[in-house]
């Protein structure tokens, strides 16, 4: 693709096609489907953070007059440990099953143990109290330090650390150890004039989507079944649910409802297999909707982490060595995003001497789920804080220092490939030249800057475009639309077909209607599903040409297609797309294009953020007074929704940096499982979030698209953290910068 493509529709700010339903309340989300004869499912959850289950007696609950069914782990049938694609990355089926309903052990406060289906939600809740579970309570391990200690209580007797040359013979809580390196780290530090080394901590934080997990499941007499749910990947829900219940994929239809936020947290199943198991037993459709406290204690969150970063540089600002160490909490089952943490930590820098070591550690908290650029915000927080300190030490502007060392095309990454064209330098220059950076800092304020890198992914997407006889069409895609992606699909198809976007209706089709599509995650949809849409639309154009050729009695090669019109280059005739569609009956039947792809060549997206904060010296309260998010979109298909991704990511990062954290008591019980005490940013907490869209095209996408959904959550942690430190003349090492923590920094240094 060329750098200066002219577009007819791409880049406009159209009204999203699903918008009317959403502003009128018509749109149906996870909890909004009710079926005839439907009953309600509720979940019994562990009051303990770590305990053996001695026995479960459900007989009294089963005898309750309003109860139709009770299920426990045993109702999953025979599941074995095997790896399946369950959302963002592989998951072990047995772990998945044991997370949905505990087997012989509960591993966190809130761990599901049994579920009841009853005539009403209240009756189901009452029946939960009738289930008698006997526990043998064990001591919980609540952070990586305790969990990694010799002699710590072990969560899984069969877990032996992977990643050492010799696998240890005693079980531990360390699932995996990983090291990546390049160059000569010792020599790099020896060359340095300045070395900064610090240790950091980030808290357990939740994705915080406003819509709780919800589903309605129906299992029919003939074994056909249906699950309606809010998910980022309904095909993956089908895989997981079918595995746990022993069903053929063809027997299970999963319908993706509208989804009220996910940010990675709705890529895995919690209730879906349970609801279907209940329906199978009860012979009735079953609806399950989590309460907010269940969302906090039993879903998400992202890993709390302990990290170290060490960076060496010459006086002229050349970075000579970068070293990192990190331990990420996985929650109750292995699989934290430590690996992407290791991979991304220093990728914004073109430095040849790098070494990073990471540990994936199980603790007695709910199993972590993906959260926007999973693993990167924690690792890059540590790296960016230390890079800022290096700049401070050598007396160099932090943007200049980054420009001097910025990763660019050809930069060797620690994880293997060299970077292709990327836009970090352009983002840094835009930051340097921004009104924000040029404006003087107000009295008593601090300023922070940080960069962020995320790979983005491609993957499998399946799309059909069915043309109607009047020349309009329907786009069937398999990626749930979490933030307006149907608008982008519509625009990309319109660009290829050269017809008004509103003539194309994009819908998220169920699992019966399309081949497998990976879920919405990894910032892949506009890139990969967009490529599938383009391919399907090109397939339609090809058929339009063939049909027109048949009518004109020429070859398809002799037909051109421009501005929505087929043109006979061997004669005078022209036919619009609508006319060719109208005539389809006579030229071989209806027209339908397909694009079933496995997209490669996702373009990484770099982001650079600027943050000014003001700190109340007496209370430690931090206010963000100005914020600018700059990011490389490759090509912004719908600029408003690109800006929206930058802003949303920035504000989630601001919340993570300033307020959000799980608070546990000594028994491992979460004490703040609600929006009042787990405080996500409110409208009154924030200024406008300024945005600058940088466009350095990704050569692998026909229109240059890079994913934009994730990088924006990475820089805020250090941009805010550094800014707060700057305002109070201290070094922040622990997030969140909540009032008590900031006050103690001010008072005690």
């Amino acid at each position: 693709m060329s750098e200066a493509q002219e577009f007819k529709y791409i880049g406009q700010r159209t009204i999203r096609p699903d918008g009317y339903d959403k502003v009128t309340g018509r749109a149906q989300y996870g909890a909004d489907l009710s079926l005839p004869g439907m009953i309600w499912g509720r979940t019994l959850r562990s009051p303990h953070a770590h305990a053996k289950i001695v026995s479960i007696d459900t007989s009294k609950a089963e005898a309750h007059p309003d109860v139709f069914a009770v299920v426990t782990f045993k109702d999953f049938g025979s599941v074995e440990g095997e790896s399946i694609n369950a959302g963002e990355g592989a998951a072990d089926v047995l772990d998945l099953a044991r997370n949905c309903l505990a087997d012989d052990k509960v591993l966190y406060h809130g761990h599901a143990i049994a579920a009841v289906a009853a005539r009403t939600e209240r009756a189901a809740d009452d029946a939960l109290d009738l289930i008698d579970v006997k526990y043998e309570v064990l001591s919980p391990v609540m952070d990586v330090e305790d969990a990694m200690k010799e002699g710590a209580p072990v969560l899984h007797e069969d877990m032996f650390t992977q990643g050492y040359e010799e696998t240890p013979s005693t079980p531990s809580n360390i699932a995996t150890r990983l090291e990546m390196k390049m160059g000569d780290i010792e020599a790099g530090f020896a060359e340095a004039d300045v070395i900064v080394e610090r240790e950091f901590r980030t808290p357990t934080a939740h994705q915080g989507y406003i819509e709780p997990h919800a589903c309605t499941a129906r299992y029919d007499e003939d074994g056909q079944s249906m699950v309606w749910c809010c998910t980022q990947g309904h095909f993956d829900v089908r895989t997981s649910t079918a595995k746990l219940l022993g069903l053929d994929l063809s027997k299970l239809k999963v319908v993706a409802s509208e989804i009220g936020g996910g940010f990675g947290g709705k890529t895995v199943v919690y209730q879906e297999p349970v609801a279907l198991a209940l329906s199978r037993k009860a012979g009735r459709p079953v609806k399950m909707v989590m309460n907010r406290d269940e969302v906090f204690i039993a879903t998400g969150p992202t890993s709390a982490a302990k990290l170290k970063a060490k960076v060496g540089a010459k006086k002229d600002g050349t970075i000579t060595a970068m070293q990192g160490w990190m331990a990420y909490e996985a929650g109750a089952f292995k699989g934290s995003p430590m690996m992407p943490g290791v991979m991304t930590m220093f990728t914004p820098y073109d430095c040849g001497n790098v070494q990073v070591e990471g540990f994936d550690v199980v603790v007695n908290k709910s199993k972590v789920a993906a959260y926007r650029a999973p693993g990167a915000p924690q690792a890059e927080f540590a790296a960016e804080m230390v890079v800022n300190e290096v700049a401070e030490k050598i007396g160099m502007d932090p943007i200049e220092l980054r420009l001097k060392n910025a990763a660019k095309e050809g930069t060797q990454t620690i994880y293997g490939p060299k970077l292709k064209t990327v836009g970090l330098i352009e983002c840094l220059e835009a930051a340097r030249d921004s009104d924000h950076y040029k404006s003087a800092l107000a009295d008593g304020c601090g300023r922070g800057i940080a960069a962020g890198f995320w790979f983005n992914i491609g993957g499998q997407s399946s799309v059909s475009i069915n043309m109607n006889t009047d020349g309009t069409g329907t786009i069937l895609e398999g990626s749930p639309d979490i933030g307006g992606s149907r608008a982008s699909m519509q625009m990309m198809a319109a660009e290829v077909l050269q017809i008004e976007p509103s003539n194309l209706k994009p819908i998220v089709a169920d699992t019966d209607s399309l081949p497998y599509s990976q879920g919405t995650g990894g910032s892949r949809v506009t890139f990969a599903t967009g490529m599938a849409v383009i391919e399907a639309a090109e397939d339609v154009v090809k058929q339009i040409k063939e049909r027109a050729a048949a009518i004109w009695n020429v070859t398809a090669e002799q037909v051109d297609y421009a501005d929505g019109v087929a043109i006979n280059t061997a004669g005078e005739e022209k036919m619009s797309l609508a006319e060719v569609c109208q005539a389809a009956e006579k030229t071989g039947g209806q027209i339908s294009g397909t694009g079933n792809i496995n997209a490669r060549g996702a373009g990484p997206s770099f982001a650079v953020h600027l943050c000014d904060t003001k700190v109340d010296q007496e209370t430690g309260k931090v206010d963000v007074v100005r914020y600018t998010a700059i990011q490389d979109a490759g090509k912004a298909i719908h600029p408003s929704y690109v800006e929206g991704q930058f802003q949303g990511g920035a504000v989630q990062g601001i919340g993570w940096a300033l307020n959000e954290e799980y608070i546990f008591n000594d028994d491992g019980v979460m004490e703040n499982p609600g929006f009042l005490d787990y405080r996500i940013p409110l409208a009154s907490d924030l200024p406008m979030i300024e945005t600058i869209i940088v466009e350095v095209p990704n050569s692998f996408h026909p229109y240059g698209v890079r994913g934009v959904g994730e990088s924006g959550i990475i820089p805020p942690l250090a941009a805010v953290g550094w800014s707060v430190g700057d305002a109070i003349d201290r070094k922040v090492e622990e997030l969140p910068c909540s009032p008590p923590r900031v006050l103690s920094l001010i008072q005690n240094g």
Partner: protein
Amino acid sequence: MAKSHVSTSINGEPVEYLCDPGDTLLDVLRNELQLTGTKEGCGSGDCGACSVTLNGRLVCSCLVLGVEAEGAEVGTIEGVGANDKLHVIQEKFLEHAALQCGVCTPGLIVSTKALLEENPNPTEEEARYYLAGNLCRCTGYDKIIRAVMDAAETMREGA
């Protein structure tokens, strides 16, 4: 337990329903009356997804009992637009791309309407504080506030 019979008015239409004494107005709207435009994000008054008006006052319907609607006038998202025409606030939310997932949107639109009825000319700060009870996790509020300010201006011009 015996159900209570409630006569009320929803979006200007008379409605009768039976509900348990413990049912919230939100439960009744969503589960009895199938008015699922009003959303539940927390059930504890902290997110504003369930915002409705009760006798003209903005409330969290998860904190109101179904029986409390007896003889009252309830306003929900389903009643904001009229006769196949979007309300200005709804139009502005679309124009400004003030929604991503959209689950907070019904509550925010109901709250914005209440705000602009009380104060047709709010400052940005007043709007931000009035809407502080409506959580949005997707947008960072920037585009929502722009939509609200634009709607206020358009409504003032039209008034």
